[in-house]
């Protein structure tokens, strides 16, 4: 029966090629959107490395950075005054790399045959306490480290895996913007948020005297701290920094805002894809309906020579499923080229999952669209169909 169906399809290749093309394009679009969705879904399930609840970030007047002598005394004094307040636990000054800050500084250096590249977060010694960042190896830097010849730095696991796979690098000295000693490592730190991929990252110590950009203060706030404490914070800033210009950012709100930038377009893409599937389904339904009406006498004949109603329904479902299988096969051939030719840097498992999922959706749509017209075809009365010519 399969060979018989293949013959019928081949003889109608002109008309069938359009259906095949429609299914193929739908498969390709579905594959693309599903890859993007699964890629992001996988990302969002991974830990980001820090906590977002009850975290505030204080951004001060940027002009203060011009007076570096004042900054050296102002920053520790302000941090102390804030952490002395009853509702504020820990705080950390950071020049770069604060959660959802958006700013990055990428540095690249080639030493000892190893090309080291990483983005740099410049934070102070209290950063793990304020952000709840967990060290997996070694330790965080302290004030004593700043007096050493080699500048200390903490790196993430991705940094080590990328540049020194399988080597224990704790307490090793590498040349990266000067001589630097790796003193500790963390598992993850995706400060751009859950949809960001894990990048090679190093934490360098913050020094007020070396500030090029106005630093911000990450504050760990006690749970359920009401908004009016912002005013209390403002009074401290006014009294110490002598400025009214400051912004208090809530990290959980920044998280929502940043993540929306990814999931909102994804939602739009998925909606477009949904509409496409509905259009394809309606198109297939129409084509199948038309084909069945055109083939009424053939259906009558098949019934007369021994086909049961189920044989008729099965034939029409198999015909369209066969076309779908060819379209999905061609689409898969294109899709597998992506990892083979390394067109985009995306994990193979995600691509395989996307291919399987897109194929299942296509076969699901095709089967659903074929079932009703095929059942109607099976119900055609042979005596009537054979006398319509």
């Amino acid at each position, binding site marked *: *029966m399969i060979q018989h169906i293949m013959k019928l399809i081949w003889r109608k290749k002109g008309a069938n090629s359009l259906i095949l093309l429609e299914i193929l394009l739908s498969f390709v679009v579905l594959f693309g959107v599903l890859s993007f969705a699964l890629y992001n879904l996988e990302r969002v399930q991974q830990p980001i490395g820090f906590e977002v609840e009850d975290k505030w970030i204080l951004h001060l007047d940027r002009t203060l950075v011009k007076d570096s002598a004042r900054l050296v005394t102002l920053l520790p004094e302000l941090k102390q005054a804030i952490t002395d307040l009853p509702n504020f636990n820990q705080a950390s000054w950071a020049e770069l790399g604060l959660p959802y800050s958006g700013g990055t500084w990428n540095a690249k250096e080639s030493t000892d045959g190893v090309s080291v590249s990483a983005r740099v977060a410049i934070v102070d010694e209290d950063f793990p306490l304020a952000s709840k960042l967990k060290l997996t190896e070694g330790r965080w830097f302290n004030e004593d480290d700043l007096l050493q010849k080699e500048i200390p730095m903490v790196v993430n696991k991705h940094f080590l895996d990328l540049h020194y796979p399988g080597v224990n690098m704790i307490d090793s000295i590498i040349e990266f913007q000067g001589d630097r000693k790796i003193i500790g490592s963390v598992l993850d730190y995706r400060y751009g948020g859950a949809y960001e991929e894990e990048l090679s990252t190093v934490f360098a110590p913050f020094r007020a005297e070396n500030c090029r950009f106005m630093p911000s203060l990450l504050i760990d706030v006690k749970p359920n701290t009401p908004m009016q404490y912002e005013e209390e914070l403002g009074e401290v800033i006014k009294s110490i920094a002598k400025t009214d210009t400051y912004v208090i950012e809530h990290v959980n709100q920044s998280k929502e805002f940043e993540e929306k930038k990814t999931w909102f377009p994804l939602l739009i893409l998925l909606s477009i894809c949904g509409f496409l599937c509905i259009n394809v389904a309606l198109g297939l339904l129409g084509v199948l309906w038309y084909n069945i009406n055109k083939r009424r006498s053939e259906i009558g*004949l*098949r019934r007369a020579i*021994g086909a049961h109603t189920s044989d008729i329904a099965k034939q029409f479902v198999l015909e369209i499923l066969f076309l779908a299988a060819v379209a999905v096969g061609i689409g898969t051939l294109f899709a597998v080229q992506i990892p083979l030719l390394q067109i985009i840097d995306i994990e193979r498992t995600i691509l395989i999952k996307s291919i399987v999922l897109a194929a299942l959706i296509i076969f699901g749509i095709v089967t659903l669209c074929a079932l009703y017209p095929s059942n109607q075809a099976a119900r055609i009365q042979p005596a009537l169909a054979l006398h319509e010519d």
Partner: protein
Amino acid sequence: MISIQNLSKVYRTKTIETTALNNINLNVPKGEFLSIMGPSGCGKSTLLNIMGLLDEPTSGKVEIDGQSMPNYNSKSVARFRNKQLGFIFQSFHLIPDLNILDNVELPLLYAKVNRKERKRLSEEALESVGLRNRMQHFPGQLSGGQKQRVAIARAIVGKPQIVLADEPTGNLDSSMGNEVMDILLRLNQVLETTIVMVTHDANMAKKTDRLIRLYDGTQIQ
């Protein structure tokens, strides 16, 4: 072979009731070549469809080879049609997308005969209608007479006991009609196939063993 008792067929719509067949009683013994004549709309094709288990009677009984068929949509009836009945139609009903061999093979496909055997039996059937050399042609490449001979080959490929022919020469000129009729007569005489043929052509009907006439759904002869 075919026994019909008190057969009636009534078509009903919301507003009208049409009696297509009225109390028909008929026996067709094995090996008989029966022709049915009558004006258009007298119920000839309806009677043939009911004999061929393609339509249900409103009342009455149809027995073929001693068996009555209660459910016309059942698998057993489909199987019975496949094994015991062969159909020939005025408009041939060949599938244009299949070549001649594939068209003839069709009943064997539903009988689940293997590919090699299907080919052998189909070639044999085409040989018997003189079209073996046209196996790879498509219906569109054949004349009307050749198409009807292909339809005959398809009807007999499964070696059915009964062939039901609905105006098999109706679309053919007299020469081609005679050719087709000769094949049917040979089939009846050599293989003793029971044939019931609906026709408008009195000359063709004369060649058969028996003729019955219908008028307004009633058997008048």
